[in-house]
């Protein structure tokens, strides 16, 4: 539905509205590492985008590769009187499912696999086009999905959970950390770097192909 007065709003592109309290600000040019805070409520208004589109694309490709490694490699191996038991993320999902905690299995699969993966894939798709300043087909839907999925990706929590599980198991078993745990650790770092970026910035650096 078209908005009235839209034509008179072209100056609004230089404005930014605090998401937490509705205060209106003029957008500022931020220097490296700078963060603009809302003076009314203290929320972050915008951050300096210190990695360019090309850099972000490279990071996403790296994250995708690490994500695959993290999911196929064993996280930890337990040893008990000659027997060894190893697991991957999917091993944990399947164990929960078979032991009657299907809801938790689904939650684990969504927050540690499907949401992070869709985040990475959508981001990769959007950035591939953004490198030439273009908006990918389905750009609006992709950007909306990124915003909605973001709070439900929990790789960082899983990382800490693995650590706790290893310590708990260590009391009774020999614990050998597998490559999966390093991959998850690296993924956590990459995701932290990304989280310091506002993906919505891509709206400003790309233009519709038709326009």
């Amino acid at each position, binding site marked *: 539905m078209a908005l009235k007065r839209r034509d008179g709003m072209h100056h609004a592109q230089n404005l930014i509205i605090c998401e937490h*309290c509705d205060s209106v600000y003029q957008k500022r040019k931020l220097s490296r590492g700078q963060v603009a805070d809302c*003076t009314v409520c*203290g929320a972050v208004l915008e951050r300096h985008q210190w990695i360019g589109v090309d850099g972000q694309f490279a990071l996403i490709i790296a994250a995708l590769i690490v994500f695959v490694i993290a999911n196929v490699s064993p996280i930890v191996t337990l040893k008990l009187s000659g*027997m060894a038991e190893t697991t991957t993320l999917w091993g*944990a999902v399947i164990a929960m499912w078979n032991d009657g905690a299907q809801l*938790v299995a689904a*939650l684990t699969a969504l927050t540690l696999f499907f949401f992070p993966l869709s985040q990475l894939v959508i981001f990769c798709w959007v950035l591939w086009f953004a490198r030439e300043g273009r908006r990918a087909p389905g750009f609006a839907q992709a950007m909306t999905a990124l915003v909605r999925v973001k709070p439900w990706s929990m790789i960082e929590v899983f990382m800490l959970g693995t650590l706790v599980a290893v310590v708990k198991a260590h009391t009774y078993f020999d614990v050998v950390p597998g490559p999966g745990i390093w991959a998850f650790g690296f993924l956590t770092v990459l995701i932290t770097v990304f989280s310091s970026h506002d993906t*919505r910035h891509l*709206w400003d650096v790309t233009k519709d192909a038709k326009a």
Partner: protein
Amino acid sequence: MSAPPRARELGMMSCHICRLVTAYSDDPHAHCPRCHSALHVRKQGSIARSWALLLAAAMFYIPANVFPIMRTQSLSSKDDNTILSGIFELWRAGSPGLAVIVFTASIVVPMLKFIIMTILLVSVQRSSGLVSKQRARLYRFVELIGYWSMLDVFVVAILSALVHFQILSRVEPLPGVVYFGVVVVLTMLSAMSFDPRLIWDNRKSQ
């Protein structure tokens, strides 16, 4: 420095999804001209939805703590742990640091979420202008810590997958962990439903 104007006073609003600044509209069917998401001045039905989800979470929180979340079985013993007893065990096993982390994630964080969301909802309904800045800070805190409560759920998932030595030793998830997972999701949804702009709206006095 004087306070910046608020969007509503200037006849503006911004898109929740892409942050585009558009002209103010109270049309409930308005869409963002840029990303086509629904445009709302404030999240719709925010307070009622946030309350409902919070109360549901509080209800599930009881079985989540009373029922054991994990069974450790070996040849000689069968040991059911609740969230709290699991923390004690971690402490006794010589990892007080991790015990504190798990205690924070599983007990302190959910408790804080219940308390803070209740404070926010009650104060907004009373149109209190009191310590708005502190309440805004509390809201951001809840948003930030929300998902860390999932910690124990993931610990049980990993241990259940790992400790599978037939009759010798086994770890199984128990119903408590399902309730706990539900609590985490409900409290996160409750916080997301809350619109922090309400803290700054309809104040009795400036």
